[in-house]
């Protein structure tokens, strides 16, 4: 548990670095804001419309699909870490195939999910 203190340490140091960089740039610059410099960039013309319009729903669908397969990965990681130990041990010799088969069933179910997403066309057009 004490192994995780350096994470806090480097978090604090990294936040400090980022803060120093931002503050440095605030005080070391010339401040000459003109109207053109402060406008959003649109290839030199006045911006047409706001940037807060609706975006395509494709991004949301990709995020949902990512979520599902990421949860699958979350289940796969602990299984993978203990897999070799279990399969090569003498104690669980009789459960080798059960251990393997269960996860294969899980992966097949999620693979079917991928095929469904594929056939529904979510991975198409702008993708």
């Amino acid at each position: 548990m004490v192994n995780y203190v350096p994470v806090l340490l480097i978090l604090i140091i990294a936040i400090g670095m980022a803060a120093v960089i931002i503050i440095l740039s605030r005080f070391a610059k010339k401040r000459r804001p003109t109207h053109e410099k402060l406008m959003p960039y649109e290839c030199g013309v006045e911006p047409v419309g706001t940037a807060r319009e609706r975006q395509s729903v494709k991004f949301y669908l990709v995020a949902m699909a990512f979520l599902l397969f990421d949860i699958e990965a979350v289940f796969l990681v602990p299984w993978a870490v203990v897999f070799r130990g279990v399969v090569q041990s003498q104690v669980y010799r009789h459960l080798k195939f059960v251990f393997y088969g269960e996860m294969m069933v899980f992966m097949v179910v999620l693979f079917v999910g991928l095929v469904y997403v594929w056939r529904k066309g979510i991975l198409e057009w702008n993708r």
Partner: protein
Amino acid sequence: MTNLLLEWVIKTIVILLILVTAVAYVTLMERKVMAWIQMRVGPNRVGLGKFRLWGLMQPLADGLKMIFKEDIIPLQANQWLYVLAPALSLIPALMTFIVIPYGSQITLFNHTIELHVTSMNVGLLYVLALTSVGVYGIVLAGWSSNNKYSLMGGLRSSAQMISYELALGLSIVSVLLYTGTLDLVEIVDAQRGFHGLAWNIFHYPLLILVFIIFYIASLAETNRTPFDLPEADSELVAGYHTEYSSMKFVMFQMAEYLNLITASSISTTLFFGGWNGPSVGRLPYLGPVYFTIKVFVLIFMAMWIRYTVPRFRYDQLMRFGWKFLLPASIVNIIISSTVILFMR
């Protein structure tokens, strides 16, 4: 306890200093490699006083220039998010380096020092988690700039990153089947022996396929060509960092190169034996040298690919990630686990 804390602080500061210098010189390396591949010379004039020094002071000059540029915050932008986004991109990029082992053990001033800041039992998962947090910086940058190009660039970039994160994570699962641990220090320790050449990729040859998938996914994850449509100069202006100037832009660039260095470091740790190499048992100082050489070779490969291959169109990119890399990494897991089940 204070001894331990002091050791951590010193190691962290040393690693961060080396990293920041490394990032600066990776930018120079990028420009030089780009130049030589394009049959020209690249920056070779910025020296010190009267000495040319082959352009080695270029990153210093660029850094100073960037500090003194005007820091414009557009009026329409969400002020706090606009300032937060580059920090949110940079901080996770810096945090990954504490779990990577750079060497075995050296003895300095009568102390035995292990050359890794901490040996977390979930080191690899920690690195993956930080990569995922890095996506926030990009999407916030795109959103808070209040600029249509930034928003589209940010959304596309983050959609690309999360799609390839799946292939990345699942190929790491393939490696985990062989190593049996998430602790990077233990993964490298298990690759000792045989004159320092018992790397995972020689010991388990199926890992070559996994390495290829991992490397391609990490190139896409760090938004490098051929996957850099969301930030390429001639597409969507400059994508999510259109509205950024001066040091905030520098923070984005630093985060990008840090991500590249992280991806290369994780690749060498998982596949190429980390700090292992010939006669590293007798001369422990060779550990960091071998590690640096391997990371350098992988970074050079990334740059080589960048200046050789044209970039993917966005739909080709997403199709490749979802329809090819993801099924390929799943199939790899199935093959690897079957091999481990039946052989040995």
